[in-house]
């Protein structure tokens, strides 16, 4: 292996380890994957660092051997495009460190759609994302709606949910979505879910903004169907939660 090749490979390995370290240390790892799998990048980070150090150490050995007049054996990788591999493997390092981590935005919903029903986990126990006593989140409500086909049984129940504003072509002028992304393992499988809400304030709400909506459930029409709709009493702007996703 050429010296330059070894140095660059060690640098990219260290860069990958550092990229993983920075997402773990600043908490943005949850923007990418479900916290359930957090041990994986952690182990990978350690191994990458070990590989980088080994490369550096071996390069020292080779240089030592050269200085003593022992030329290392022939370089059989001559002509291979090793630098292509190094350059391509540097892409995730550059993207991970330079592009500020941000969860997917509302334009993704236009591509993937938004759902009024919760993704279900039949066999495993249902994980809840909330502390005991905290109000039900969007996912909890959708699960509950899924158990009963008649939306009128929920009329009058108090709702206190946080999500971001979304609006589609089926929404009336006073109607909007309080939406969240649900992810099972990583952002690649993110699906948008949401509850419908109505308020005279609706036209002034900006799509993509995080809000906390409180009010009572009623029924309303969406795309010709009768569905539960939040009659919003109060809409206050909210911070994006530390973990912006809900995990079914």
């Amino acid at each position, binding site marked *: *292996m050429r010296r330059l090749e070894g140095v660059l490979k060690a640098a990219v*390995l*260290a860069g990958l380890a*550092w990229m993983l370290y*920075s997402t773990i240390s600043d908490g943005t790892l949850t*923007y*990418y*994957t*479900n916290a359930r*799998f957090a041990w*994986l*990048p952690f182990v*990978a980070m350690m*191994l*990458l660092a*070990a*590989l980088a*150090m080994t*490369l550096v150490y*071996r390069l*020292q050995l*080779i240089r*030592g*051997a050269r*200085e*003593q007049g022992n030329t290392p054996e022939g370089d*059989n990788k001559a002509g*291979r495009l090793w630098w292509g*591999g*190094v350059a*391509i*493997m540097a*892409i995730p390092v550059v*993207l*991970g460190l*330079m*592009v*500020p981590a*941000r*969860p*997917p935005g509302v*334009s*993704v919903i*236009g*591509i*993937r*759609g938004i759902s009024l029903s919760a*993704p*279900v*986990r*039949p*066999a*495993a126990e249902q994980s809840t994302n909330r502390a005991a006593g905290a109000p039900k989140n969007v996912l909890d409500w959708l699960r509950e709606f899924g158990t009963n086909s008649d939306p009128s049984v929920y009329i009058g129940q108090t709702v206190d949910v946080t999500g971001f504003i979304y609006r589609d072509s089926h929404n009336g002028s006073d109607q909007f979505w309080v939406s969240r992304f*649900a992810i*099972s*393992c*990583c*952002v*690649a*499988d993110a699906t948008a879910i949401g509850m419908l809400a109505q308020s005279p304030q609706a036209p002034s709400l900006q799509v993509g903004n995080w809000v906390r909506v409180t009010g009572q459930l009623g029924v309303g029409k969406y795309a010709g169907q009768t569905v539960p709709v939040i009659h919003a009493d109060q809409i206050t702007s909210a911070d994006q939660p530390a973990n912006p996703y809900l995990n079914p």
Partner: protein
Amino acid sequence: MSRKKLLSSVMLILTILLGTLALDNLIPLLSGVPMPTLPDLAQTCVTTFLALFIQVMPFLLFGSIVSGLIEVFITPDDLANVIPRASFPATLVGALLGLIFPVGACGVVPVVRRLYQKGLPVSTGITFLLSAGAINPVVIASTYVAFGLNTVFWARLGFSLLIAMSVGLVFSVQASLLHILRPEVLAPVMGGSQDPMPVAGAQVESFPDRLQRSLVYAANEFFDLGRYLVVGLLIASALQTLVPQQWLLEFGSRPAESVFALTSMTYVLSAGSSVDAFVALPYASTFTPGAIVAFLVLGPMASIKSTLMFLGVFRRRIVFYLFLLPLLATLAISLALNLRLGW
């Protein structure tokens, strides 16, 4: 010399540490300047790519390390003693190798490549390659956690074994590695050496030396196949961000269309096989069982990332067969499940 060596390695490690610290403080300063916030879709594409990469890359890394250990610690003779010559037992061994090397659908690629260089029979390697994503303890456990011991669980195991072994047997008529491997992968088989970093003057290697050498192999392997992984994941994340998938979900209850929908989704998704059971779970309530089985059986065998990575090992024609045969078999099985059995 050894003092000098020690000193310079310490210096290098210090430089890396200090460099990291310096950069860590620099990046926040830089991040506002050169990279203004990306447009929404580009940002999502990057986020999706990084998410897939963070989730799948560790498995390639484990696989590369296993491959490095095999290179240094296993001789072709060891392998010849263990692997049967007859084609059926050889494919059976290939199907179960995943239980010994639980490297997953991604990490198996460097392992198979290395085992071929040690003289593994063609059919054993192909079967291992296709079954490793499903027949491995991590994947079996995650499928069990997601679905329990129901039909989907057994169908995934059974059909993965069946398809991997069938394709392996098809390849057993082709005994020569010459026709299936890329020329540069063949070099060591043909007597050339691929030793990336020989240490001059070391006659008898000590254990730490061999371990180090295996890690150097691992690093090279990681770069060799990592570039295919990165390109594959870039394509996958671009497709996932830009191509509307909403309409796919409307086919959930139709016997044939649902299978095609989830088959194409599993190919594009390129999620690691250790987590794909959790990805499939949300669809379990709305999609036909055949479609769920197709998603779980085909995903570990064929996806954008694995097709790209196979290109780093096999000739193009073989990569095409490795895509086509599992695809057709999966479609046939899942359509039969949906149409005939109607569960």
